[in-house]
């Protein structure tokens, strides 16, 4: 019973992806609409890029389909809650790297619990382009890695919606 419920929820997640992708199909989207200035800027000049000594939380992920890799490290404030610094290292397609760069800007200064529960739509809106299901995984790699890092540090379980993606993207 429990597992069939989980499956239903999983279906809803993939339906979301399919809906997002529908917007991308058959459009007259041009190259400069997809690779927007801001995305290319984040890709070429990634924010928060580099290693971090003794992070409070960290995780890494690999999209086996295309070889995108992302490692994220987080330093928390004295309250053990505020994200004081977040850094990433990685390589891969422009979308995976730019999305992770944008994510670091988006979450800095916010509370870890809030970011651990951050809806993916918030990041996707920031990126602002329609994705096919395959590219959606590129876009969500960084967020998945960050969520795994934060939930692990907090000792809270990863929401089911993300568990499937975390396994697919080999996040640990």
């Amino acid at each position: 019973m429990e597992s069939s419920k989980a499956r239903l929820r999983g279906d809803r997640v993939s339906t979301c992806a399919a809906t997002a992708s529908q917007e991308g199909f058959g459009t007259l989207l041009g190259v400069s609409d997809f690779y927007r200035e801001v995305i290319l800027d984040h890709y070429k000049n990634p924010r928060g890029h580099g290693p971090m000594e003794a992070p409070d939380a960290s995780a890494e992920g690999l999209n086996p389909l295309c070889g995108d890799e992302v490692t994220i490290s987080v330093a928390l404030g004295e309250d053990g809650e505020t994200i004081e610094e977040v850094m990433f290292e990685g390589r891969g397609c422009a979308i995976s790297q730019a999305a992770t760069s944008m994510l670091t800007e988006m979450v800095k200064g916010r509370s870890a619990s809030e970011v651990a529960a951050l809806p993916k739509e918030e990041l996707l809106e920031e990126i602002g382009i329609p994705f096919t299901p395959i590219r959606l995984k590129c876009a969500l790699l960084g967020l998945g890695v960050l969520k795994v890092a934060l939930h692990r540090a907090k000792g809270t379980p990863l929401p089911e919606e993300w568990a499937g993606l975390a396994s697919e993207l080999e996040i640990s």
Partner: protein
Amino acid sequence: MTSPAKLDARKLRADFPIFEQEIHGKPLAYLDSAATAQKPRQMLDTVRNFYETSYANVHRGVYELSERATAAYEGARRLLAVFVNAPSEKEMIFTRNATEGLNLVAYAWGLVNLGPGDVVVVTELEHHSNFVPWQYVAKRTGADFRMIPLDEQGELDLGDLDSVGAGGNVRVVAANLVSNSLGTVNPVERLATWAHDQGAIMVVDAAQAAPHRLIDVQALGCDFLAFSAHKLCGPTSVGALWGRRELLESMEPFNLGGHMIRAVRFEETTWGDVPAKFEAGTQPIAEAVGFGAAIEYISAAGLEAIEQHEHDLVVYALERLEGIPGIKLYGPPAERRAGIVSFNLGDVHPHDVAQVLDLEGVAIRAGHHCCQPLMQKLGVAATNRASFYLYTLPEEIDRLVQGLHKVRKVFA
């Protein structure tokens, strides 16, 4: 025999309804035929007509429709046998695809005949479909799993074959005739001779070869050869395995169930004759009929003419692509290469390359092409791959090149 007529790609292209649309507001340049080929109206009409006029289950009924369906299904088998120059149509087995054909051999021959001390040899160029089943079966039986290495150009290094087999009893040699990833045309005849010298069977993955060049199983000297319909303008979900009759007859079945039996008793079941022994359950009947129609279609175009057309395209593509700054081309020279070009463009990830090209209406494949061991060898996570077929036009290659210049501009 006169030399084959030159292929008129522009005329053939009109047979493919898929090209009557625009993608992202641009005409479709489909450069991913190595993944799967588009479908001509003639094949589609045959399948539709079969469903509308002659459809029933085969080998079952005594009624008119079943007779008609059986005749169409078995007619397709005859076409396939002629297509690969099989000595007998009874040696042609319908499968789901090339992958299933290769699994059939790995399970029904490999599991029974392999053991410790035996060696299974594949190549570093294999598609996962001719790699993973053998790796798995070798592990299960305790046999050694070894690889023929590649040289710098992406061609098999056959210089030291005997050391590949050294110290073991080589029982299987499995290789593709054309690499799906680099387009390398492999010297399967030589491998087959070596395999037989070792007392091994030669298993050929022809998924990427059968659509594009004449196949002659007798000239190749192989023991098994598998291919798929969908890559040669046929439907999905159907493929074929050719096997040497004495081997097929000595083998255990693969799938068990209806049709593959001679007699079923409470105590024991006996198997039907080849090929029925390997065709359990209701087969993809209409797809098999469509497979036959696709074979007729590409045969009418002429396999030699298709090969020549694709060679001309590859020569042109390599020449044009070489001129792009930062491009890295993989694979052998055009004369030993089928209609496939793999490349990377500077540091730009293949997904970004393919995405920009898609927005320009150019469809190419980006990824590991089900060849992760090969990607590891090349030292890349993925490559871009453009592949051609009988409907591919030189101007599609021009659009690929223009698209790649656009990629360079975006990621400059």
